[in-house]
């Protein structure tokens, strides 16, 4: 029951909740961009602590959720091959394709491995020259440079048995698409911190047509 014991500083939480209650003078609908933010908000029950004026809307920033099912099916088909080591971030294994997940393939003795970094997959390719090593390169602006570097290093080192199955997505166009909808009720974003770290915070500033929306 670790979710009940970890990070339970009731006093600090009440101080923050009270400070937010005092600030709020009108209703707000705020979208958190990242899946990680959603995860924390839901897991810690933060929505119940917020004043009723604040409505949180879950955003599109979860690579696990936005990877098309066709890509999962491709990953499953490749991972089933006997000449292949299929490498992925751990989060992707349980995502169901139209018939199976990568976890199912692993359970059926497919060589599916969880790696922390695309460079770990490249290392596996060097260690297993008789196998084709495929890395499932998913994610946003944050993982794209890492995957690109793995491809660059593979080319530089003449590694012939390393490939990427790529499904990269940009965050700002998704925000723009949401804001340009006539039915959009989002008045502010809790922005994607690591995307800002990589791209600069200006990259997700609202465009002029959505100037009434704020990013934090």
């Amino acid at each position, binding site marked *: 029951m*670790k979710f009940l014991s*970890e*990070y339970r*500083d009731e006093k600090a939480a009440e101080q923050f909740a009270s400070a937010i209650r005092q600030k709020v003078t009108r209703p707000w609908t705020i979208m958190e961009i*990242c*899946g*990680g933010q959603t995860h*924390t908000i839901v897991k810690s029950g933060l929505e119940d602590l917020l004043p009723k004026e604040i409505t949180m809307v879950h955003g599109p920033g*979860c*690579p696990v959720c936005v990877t098309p099912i066709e890509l999962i099916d491709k990953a499953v088909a490749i991972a089933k091959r006997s000449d292949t080591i299929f490498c992925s*971030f*751990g*989060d992707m294994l349980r995502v169901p394709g139209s018939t199976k997940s990568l976890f199912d393939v692993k359970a059926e003795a497919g060589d599916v491995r*969880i*790696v*922390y*970094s*695309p*460079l*770990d997959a490249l290392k596996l390719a060097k260690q297993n020259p008789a196998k084709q090593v495929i890395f499932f390169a998913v*994610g946003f602006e*944050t*993982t794209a*440079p*890492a995957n690109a*570097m793995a491809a*660059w*290093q593979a080319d*530089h080192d003449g590694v012939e048995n390393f490939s990427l199955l790529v499904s990269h997505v940009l965050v700002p166009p998704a925000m723009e698409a949401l804001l340009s909808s006539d039915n959009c009720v989002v008045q502010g974003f809790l922005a994607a911190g*690591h995307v800002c*770290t*990589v791209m600069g915070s200006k990259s997700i500033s609202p465009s002029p047509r959505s100037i009434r929306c704020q990013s934090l």
Partner: protein
Amino acid sequence: MCLAVPGRIIAITDTGDIAFRVGKVDFGGIRKEVNLAYTPEAEVGKYVLVHVGFAISVIDEDEAQRVFKVLEEMGALKEELGEIPQ
């Protein structure tokens, strides 16, 4: 995969090619190899924010320790660092 964890650089292996510049980074006692290609300003003793095996930013010590403490309190470090091969 979604987290970035701050750590302190304790050694750098520099072969002359920036793409292969690697640092040994200490995350509260756990030490890992981290690619420093995207943070050319990173030096031994400085703190970096590490995501999927790459330093994505050099940050100051106060910020590093604040973020590390929060991640530790959330119980998120074990899960994230546990995934990094030693």
